[in-house]
C-alpha cells in the first residue's frame, strides 16, 4: 500500500543497547537502570556541546562492546541530535571507523534511526548498523531558549530536555526484532508555543497511530505497550483524548518516555522530559531489557519530534512535528 506500513521481510534484531545519562536523570525513577551516568553532566569536557559528543561516544562504545562486534563490522551508523548541524553526532563519530549518515528528526531521531536501519537491513543493503542519538539539557537550553543561569519561570506545559545518549546495534542476533515501520508525515497544526511542545507534537503522533491501526488488522489491545516519546503529560493527554475521537482507544496500554524519565513533581520538570536522548535512554534502559526478558512481547514505539529552529521561532513560525513508528517484538 502506498505510504503504508513497511512490513520488514528480513527482520533485524536489536543485538545490544547502551544508555548514558546525566545526574538528574540518574536521580529519577529509572535511575538504577542506566548503564552509565555522570555526576556533573560535563563528562570531563569544557563545553556543553563537547559533553554531549562525549556522552554519545560513551554510549556507542558501550553498545558496540555489549554486542561483541567491533566498529569496523558495522555497515553504517545512523545518528543525530538537537544541536545545529548535528554537531553532537558529527564529532562523536570521528572516534569510530564506521560510515555515517546524519539524521535530524529532533526527538523522533531514535525511532527514525531504528526505522531506517531496519529498512536498510530488510532490503539486504546492510547486515548490521548502529543507531545513536542524544540530547543535553545544557546545550539545548542555550540553543533553543535562555542561558542556563537566566532567572525565568517555566509554564506548567513546558518540558525538560533530558541529558542522555542512547545507542543501539542492529544485526542478525538477538531476541528482539523490528518487524514493522511506518514513517511519519510532517504535521503542523499551528502551535507556536515552544513551552507546549506536547501540543505541537501530538497531532503528528495521532496521524501516525491512526494510519497504523487503519492499515493493519491490529487493535491497540494487541500490544503490550504503545509508547510515545516524548509527548510529556500535556501531549499524551491530547493524544489519548483525540485518538478516542477516531475510535482508537490507547488509554489502557499507552505510556510516554517523557513521563517515565523523571518524577514530575519531585524533580520539578512540569510536563515531563523531552529531547532526542529521552526516548533513546528510556527505550535502552527499560523497554528493551523488558522485551529481552519477555515481560513485554509486542511493543509499538512512536518517536515524536518537533521540527522548529530558533530562527523559525524568532520569526513567529509555527512548530511542525513528525512521528515515526517501529514495532518491536520479542521472540
Amino acid at each position, binding site marked *: 500500500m502506498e505510504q503504508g506500513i513497511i512490513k520488514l521481510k528480513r527482520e533485524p534484531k536489536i543485538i545490544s543497547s547502551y544508555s548514558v545519562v546525566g545526574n538528574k536523570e540518574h536521580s529519577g525513577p529509572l535511575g538504577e537502570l542506566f548503564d552509565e551516568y555522570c555526576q556533573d553532566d560535563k563528562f570531563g569536557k569544557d563545553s556543553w556541546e563537547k559533553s554531549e559528543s562525549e556522552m554519545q561516544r560513551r554510549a556507542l562504545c558501550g553498545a558496540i562492546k555489549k554486542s561483541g562486534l567491533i566498529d569496523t563490522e558495522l555497515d553504517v551508523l545512523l545518528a543525530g541530535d538537537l544541536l545545529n548541524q548535528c554537531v553532537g553526532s558529527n564529532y562523536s563519530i570521528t572516534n569510530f571507523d564506521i560510515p555515517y549518515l546524519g539524521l535530524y528528526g529532533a526527538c523522533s531521531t531514535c525511532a527514525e534511526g531504528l526505522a531506517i536501519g531496519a529498512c536498510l537491513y530488510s532490503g539486504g543493503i546492510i547486515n548490521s548498523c548502529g543507531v545513536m542519538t542524544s540530547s543535553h539539557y545544557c546545550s539545548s537550553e542555550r540553543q533553543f531558549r535562555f*542561558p542556563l*543561569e*537566566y532567572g525565568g*519561570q517555566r*509554564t506548567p506545559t513546558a518540558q525538560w530536555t533530558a541529558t542522555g545518549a542512547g545507542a543501539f546495534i542492529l544485526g542478525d542476533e538477538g531476541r528482539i526484532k523490528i518487524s514493522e515501520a511506518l514513517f511519519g508525515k510532517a504535521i503542523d497544526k*499551528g502551535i507556536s508555543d515552544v513551552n507546549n511542545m506536547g501540543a505541537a507534537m501530538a497531532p503528528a503522533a495521532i496521524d501516525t497511530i491512526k494510519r497504523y491501526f487503519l492499515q493493519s488488522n491490529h487493535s491497540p489491545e494487541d500490544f503490550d505497550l504503545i509508547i510515545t516519546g516524548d509527548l510529556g503529560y500535556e501531549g499524551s493527554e491530547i493524544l489519548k483524548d483525540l485518538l478516542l475521537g477516531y475510535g482508537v482507544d490507547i488509554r489502557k496500554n499507552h505510556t510516554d518516555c517523557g513521563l517515565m524519565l523523571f518524577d514530575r513533581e519531585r524533580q520539578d520538570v512540569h510536563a515531563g522530559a523531552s529531547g532526542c536522548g529521552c526516548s533513546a535512554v528510556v527505550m535502552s534502559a527499560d523497554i528493551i531489557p523488558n522485551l529481552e526478558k519477555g515481560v513485554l512481547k509486542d511493543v509499538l514505539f512512536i518517536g515524536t519530534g518537533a521540527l522548529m529552529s530558533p530562527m523559525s521561532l524568532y520569526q513567529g513560525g509555527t512548530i511542525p512535528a513528525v512521528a515515526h513508528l517501529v514495532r518491536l517484538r520479542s521472540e
Partner: protein
Amino acid sequence: MNEKEYSEYVQGRAKKSPILKNCAFAFLFGGLICTIGQALNDLYTYFGFEKEISGTLVSITLIFIACLLTGIGVFDNIAKIAGAGTLVPITGFANAVASQAVDTKSEGYIMGVGAKIFTIAGPVILYATLSGAIYGVIYYIITLIGG
C-alpha cells in the same frame, strides 16, 4: 479539527501558571529587594555619602550581588520562585547580562561574551534609550508650548 479549533482546544485544556501564587511571591521578593536597597541607601548615607551617590552605590551593590549569585548558580533557583520579584528590579537586568556572559564564554571573549552578552538585555537597552529620547522631545515641545 482545523488549526483554529485545535489551538482553542489546546489552550482550553492547558494548565495555567499559578498567577496568584506567582504574584504573591513576586510581591514578597520584589519588596524584599527594595527593602534591602533602602537599607543600603540608609547605610551609605550614614557613612556620609551624598544622596545621589548613595543611590548609585545601591544600584552597584545590587548589580554586584545579582551577578555574583548568577555566577555561582544560585540566582536562577531564587528566580524560579520569585519570578517578576527578581526580574523587574535591577537584579533581573544584571542577571540577564551575567547569565549570557557565563553561557557564551565557551565561544571565546570576542565572538562569545563580546558579541552575545547583550542578547537578552540588548532590546531593553535599545528601546529604553529610544523611548527616553522620544520622551525628551515630547517634553521639550510641551515646555515650548507651555512657555
